[in-house]
């Protein structure tokens, strides 16, 4: 491939115009593109096999010239994967299996009628929605960082350029001084998307003004928060947006070397990033003399090794330097003394992904979205007990209620919503009563939680909040680097107390002790892991104190999670005598005869919950 000049960008756009039109659905014609989701999740559900089957069937029907199959990055609607979208019509198919393909090809591509069965249905009673654009999950989103998802082949740089990619870079390198770039980012109000929420423009500014060469740009792709996979999806779907963002940042601060620190648990993302960097280098967009302007910058990929604490900026830098990933006290800002003691800008994947569009579409456009202090959009991973689990992007300030019900489809199986946990292990739980709060950095912090990296875990009535707090503390006990006594021993102490409470031997003094230890850990820890470790405990104590008291005083877990504190019992009045629970019990703890009410033998019951989940009539109670 040749090194690109700026004019070449436009020629590529011209060359790919037809393809873009098909994928945007703005043209009618013979050419059809099948956009098949190939994110890690859908690949695990064999979307590779689906592609092979598609190609086979299309060839068999002689349609392989008309119809192309493109593997894209994560589409977002993970609940119903594997998914595919057929453009230009915009028909959305879900839960496809290899066996469905012959029928699909026959009906849709040969005859031209979409297949009803594979279309999305909000619930069993409602009509199917054929077009992706009409489905509430997609319609209610505002895409910025994810604007190319499902529309480009991440392993083909021309797809990205065809949609206006690298135009921002061209604009910056030819027409803007570095100070002007930083000014623009400041005006847009972009705040770090990794959890800290620090204004990106200010960070770049202080690095640009710092003394020392070389300067470094680091992209933090060590997304360790459980329940969060936004960064993975961005890299799997559109890695060039991150690369372009990093190059623009490098120009703004005067850096010539960049690193992407990516988790070892993301092999597909790592692979796609590697391919993207390689293709960018081939086009001369990375390396020496980018666009012939004399600016040089290159990116190298560094792999993590399974430590959550390496998501913290000083630990991440230590890991790149080949040392143990322990955080260190921040006497100097990283922007002055960062990687190898040189000025460094460290930003999250999503932050960089927003940068190119801020340049091309303007700071005012970006600042026009969101709230006063939190501008733009945010990608959230909506998971847990929710109908439409998946990845979404909405404007800052959208209410939780809208996210959970209008986009997420509410809580499945008619259960009640209990809480929403945001911000991963550093965040807190927001009760159902506060669902109308707008989602932005400051609002979430006000209620005792935090935005974090954007994980949003929905919990229904069968989630025990004490158990949730215990779960997060267990996570932090494992992942603590061990440097600070308060974090290392404090988290263990909290765990011991919470285990006591969940085991039935808690006392009311324990609640006071939990609060005291939590405040001590918050004050005395060195890094973010330690200072935010007690947040789950404190927020659940604030909003769900009654549940703690029920665990301690009545020794009961109403959610049916803490095994020592509840029992399953069949409600004799409503039992339909079907025997399904009896058949499914792995411990043989149910007594049932035909036409008789089932009875659970408590001594044998292991509280696995299978009977509770399989009973179609909700007859089994938790007492």
């Amino acid at each position, binding site marked *: 491939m040749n090194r690109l000049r700026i004019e070449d960008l436009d020629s590529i756009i011209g060359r790919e115009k037809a393809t873009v039109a098909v994928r945007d659905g703005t043209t009618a014609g013979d050419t059809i593109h099948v956009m098949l989701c190939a994110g*890690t999740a859908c690949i695990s559900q064999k979307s590779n096999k689906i592609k092979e089957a598609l190609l086979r069937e299309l060839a068999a029907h002689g349609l392989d010239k008309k119809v192309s199959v493109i593997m894209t990055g994560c589409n977002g609607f*993970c609940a119903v994967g594997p998914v595919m979208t057929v453009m230009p019509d915009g028909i959305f198919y879900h839960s496809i299996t290899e066996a469905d393909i012959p029928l699909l090809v026959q009906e849709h591509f040969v005859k031209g009628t979409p297949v009803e069965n594979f279309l999305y249905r909000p619930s069993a009673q409602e009509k199917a929605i054929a077009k992706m654009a009409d489905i509430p999950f997609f319609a209610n989103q505002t895409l910025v960082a994810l604007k190319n998802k499902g529309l480009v082949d991440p392993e083909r740089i021309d797809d990205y350029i065809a949609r206006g990619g690298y135009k921002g870079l061209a604009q910056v390198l030819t027409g803007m001084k570095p100070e002007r770039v930083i000014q623009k980012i400041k005006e847009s109000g972009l705040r770090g998307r990794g959890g800290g929420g620090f204004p990106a423009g200010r960070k770049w500014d202080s690095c640009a003004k710092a003394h020392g060469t070389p300067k470094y740009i680091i992209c933090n792709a060590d997304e360790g928060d*459980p329940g969060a*996979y936004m960064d*993975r999806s961005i890299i799997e779907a559109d890695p060039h947006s991150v690369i372009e963002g990093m190059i623009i940042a490098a120009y703004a601060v005067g850096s010539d070397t960049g690193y992407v620190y990516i988790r070892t648990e993301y092999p597909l993302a790592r692979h796609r990033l590697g391919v993207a960097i390689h293709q960018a280098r081939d086009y001369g967009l990375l390396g020496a003399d980018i666009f012939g302007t004399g600016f040089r910058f290159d990116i190298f990929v560094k*792999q993590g090794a*399974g430590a959550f604490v390496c998501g913290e900026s000083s630990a991440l830098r230590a890991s790149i330097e080949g040392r143990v990933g322990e955080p260190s006290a921040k006497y100097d800002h990283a922007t002055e003394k960062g990687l190898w003691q040189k000025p460094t800008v460290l930003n999250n994947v999503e932050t960089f992904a927003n940068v190119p569009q801020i340049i091309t579409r303007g700071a005012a456009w970006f600042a026009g979205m969101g709230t006063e202090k939190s501008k733009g959009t945010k990608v959230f991973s909506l*998971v847990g007990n929710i109908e439409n689990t998946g990845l979404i992007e909405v404007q800052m300030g959208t209410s939780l209620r809208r996210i959970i019900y209008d986009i997420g489809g509410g809580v499945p199986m008619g259960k009640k919503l209990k809480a929403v946990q945001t911000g991963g292990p550093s965040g807190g739980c927001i009760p159902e009563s506060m669902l109308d709060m707008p989602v932005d950095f400051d609002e979430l912090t006000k209620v005792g939680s935090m935005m974090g990296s954007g994980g949003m875990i929905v919990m229904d009535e069968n989630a025990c909040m004490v158990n949730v707090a215990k779960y997060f503390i267990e996570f932090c006990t494992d992942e603590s680097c061990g440097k600070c006594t308060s974090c290392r021993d404090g988290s263990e102490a909290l765990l011991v107390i919470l285990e006591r409470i969940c085991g039935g031997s808690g006392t009311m003094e324990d609640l006071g002790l939990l609060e005291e230890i939590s405040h001590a850990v918050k004050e005395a820890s060195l890094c973010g892991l330690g200072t935010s470790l007690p947040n789950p405990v404190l927020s659940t104590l604030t909003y769900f104190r009654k549940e703690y008291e029920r665990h301690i005083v009545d020794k009961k877990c109403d959610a049916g999670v803490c095994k020592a504190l509840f029992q399953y019992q069949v409600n004799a009045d409503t039992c339909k005598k079907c025997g399904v629970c009896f058949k499914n019990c*792995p411990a043989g703890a149910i007594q049932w005869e035909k036409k008789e009410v089932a009875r659970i033998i408590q001594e044998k019951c292991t509280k696995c919950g299978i009977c509770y989940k399989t009973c179609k009539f909700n007859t089994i109670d938790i007492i």
Partner: protein
Amino acid sequence: MVFTPVLVMCGILVVITILLAVADKALVSYGECMVSIKDEHGEQQFKAKGGDTLLSALIANRVKISASCGGRGSCGYCKVQVSAGGGQILPTEEIFIGKEERKQGTRLACQVKVKEDIRLFIPDLLTSVKAMAKSGTFDTRLRWTFLRTDRPQIVPVPKKHPKLARSEQTVMESIVEKYAAERGAIMPVLQEINEKYKYLPAPVLKNVSRDMAIPLSEIYRIATFYNAFSLKPRGKYTIAVCTGTACHVKGAADILAAFEEQLGIKTGETTPERQFSLSAVRCIGCCGLAPVITVNEEVHGLMTMKKIPEIVEIYRGK
């Protein structure tokens, strides 16, 4: 010229010499003693001067015995088994003689003084040399063990660290060279070794420490800090159950317990035939498919208790 000091000096020396000579003759002579030796080849007897060490007596009579340090008591090779007349074991020998050997009367020939008639048993030189060569440890105190059962046997001391084969050494060197120009290269080097062997073997780490001039203690620090590295051998397939929040809410803990039962090992352990290792990871990033497990790099989502035996079967034969 001052003669007096010279005279005094000589005088003192002469007096002392006489005293010592007299004392030696009077006190320390044991006369001649009989040394009877039994070895694989038969019996022999000879007379030895009392007061000499056993080793010098043996060597003077051309009995084959290994004695690398020449009788200074620092190598531990001159082990013999004394059945009578050796006296008590000396502290200088204790370091080389283990409990079992002591019970059988094993002594170091260089430390035993011949004061009376001695009867002993000497091992066959060739067998003992072979045993010493096999042991391969650098611990001077554990060269070899000489135990006599009903048939004389030499028990070699078990090796502590296997050395690297030549081919493996070359691979190591090539990995280290690949990252020679990079800063902070220890991380990618360890990651490649981890990929190749599925764990970090100790002899390989020692080679890396030497080639990269990084102290072994630092490498061990890094290796034990990160979860992806293991110092113990792992199975061919690592089953990692995601215990992230989303999966936890969907019952990951029960899935993990079920895997423990199915494979018969606890989390973090490897099955005896090294086919499977079971571990818990925090969030693979496929939260939409919770609960999720990975087997090596393959992701299996929407796990149920039913699927567990199926998954194990698929990979068992591979």
